[in-house]
């Protein structure tokens, strides 16, 4: 088995690693890069616990080879907060107690972020469809959906503030 050398970007940091050709991106993140936020639930792309973004596109990292990361931009749950400042999604997940055991939570947050990036005013139905690839066996989903809608409101407020500030500068 010839190892593969990969140069990539993870959460904005230039990163290099060596992995086996059949090794998944999930295993690389967890076992080689120490980024254990993404979880292995099913390993077959059904549960979404391993959700990350590759070049901005939401994917299951268990169905991506580490070797495929060459030259791409990977985004993981570890890149969601801005230093000590939590992302509105994280804050609202806490406020709404939208987690119990927590295994699915990183995947939900990454998937919800991908949703809010393309649609900051999702309806409840849109949230439920967008998160259909993330399974939670504890919460019953309602609290998660409410947390995402609350975070969407926060994100919209943030966007309005940024827009206003930009307007003033002009």
């Amino acid at each position, binding site marked *: 088995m010839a190892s593969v050398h990969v140069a990539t970007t993870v959460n904005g940091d230039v990163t290099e690693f060596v992995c*086996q050709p059949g090794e998944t991106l999930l295993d690389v993140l967890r076992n080689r890069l120490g980024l254990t936020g993404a979880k292995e639930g099913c390993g*077959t*792309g059904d549960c979404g616990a391993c959700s990350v973004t590759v070049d901005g596109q939401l994917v299951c990292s268990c169905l991506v080879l580490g070797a*495929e990361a060459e030259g791409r931009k990977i985004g993981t749950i570890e890149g969601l907060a801005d230093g000590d400042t939590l992302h509105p999604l994280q804050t609202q997940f806490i406020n709404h107690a939208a987690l119990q055991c927590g295994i699915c939570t990183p995947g939900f947050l990454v998937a919800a972020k991908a949703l809010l990036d393309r649609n900051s005013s999702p309806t409840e139905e849109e949230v439920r469809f967008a998160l*259909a690839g993330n399974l939670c066996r504890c919460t019953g989903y309602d609290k998660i959906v409410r947390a995402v809608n609350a975070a969407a409101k926060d994100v919209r407020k943030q966007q309005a503030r940024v827009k206003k500030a930009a307007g003033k500068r002009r």
Partner: protein
Amino acid sequence: MRYEAPTTTREAVSLMAKAKGKAFVLAGGTDLLVRMKSGVIEPDLIVDIKRIEATQSIKQTAGGFRIGAAVSGAAMAKSAALCKAWPGVVEAANLIGSDQIQGRCTIAGNLCNASPAADSVPAMVAAGAKAVVVGPKGRRTVAVEKIATAPGKTSLAKGEIVEAITLPKRPAKTGDAYLRFIPRSEMDIAVVSAGVCLTLNAKGEISKARVVLGAVAATVVLVPQAAKAIIGSRLDDDALAELAAACGKACKPINDMRGTIEFRTDVAGVLARRAAKIAYQRAGGK
């Protein structure tokens, strides 16, 4: 195992053709990696085709559309022109899995995985899609329905890969649609499915039609008798009943945990009727 990510189709073909042992093409990986992990396959070589320019984009050509073999379902949904021309094909592709899967899965992969329940395939066949196949002996364009020969088996020779899927330019007064039955609202494999594409004449009668069923035989089935049943009609009740009956006759399904032979045979007709109605409306029929 070796991993290769060539940047030209020629290189990819050469790698596949010269491979000793088991070689597999990697596009979205949503089937391949699952099969690798479950131990169903143990590849000696994986050829990732996503770095090949010809596989990466959707191009509008004089003849219609050319969808690269590495274009994801999510990328198809973002192409306004494709969604407008072939809504049935895009909807079928977007039914596959979750948003996470949509970020990776491809219609070329869906085709080459050769599952009789593949969602995008009946819609592609109905629309008259073709596969651009490149191999050691050159390039050929073949109707999508000629690719799968049995569950998991294709007509591709050693070294041959699908570089792109082409869709014709949508003829005037033409509409397509795809429907599937699953016991849940999403994230499931079709128990039965139906794709319909039809064209109307100046009088609003159906002049051309293609009716295709999925998950009711070893491969997706094109049902010319069902098309015949609605050609010349305005999709009145008699024509729809004849369409459903022809679909039932074309079914050779199996009993499994997802559905019985009787259920699949019956629902094939129901879905074909409903898909035909949507296609008719999209074609401008009233």
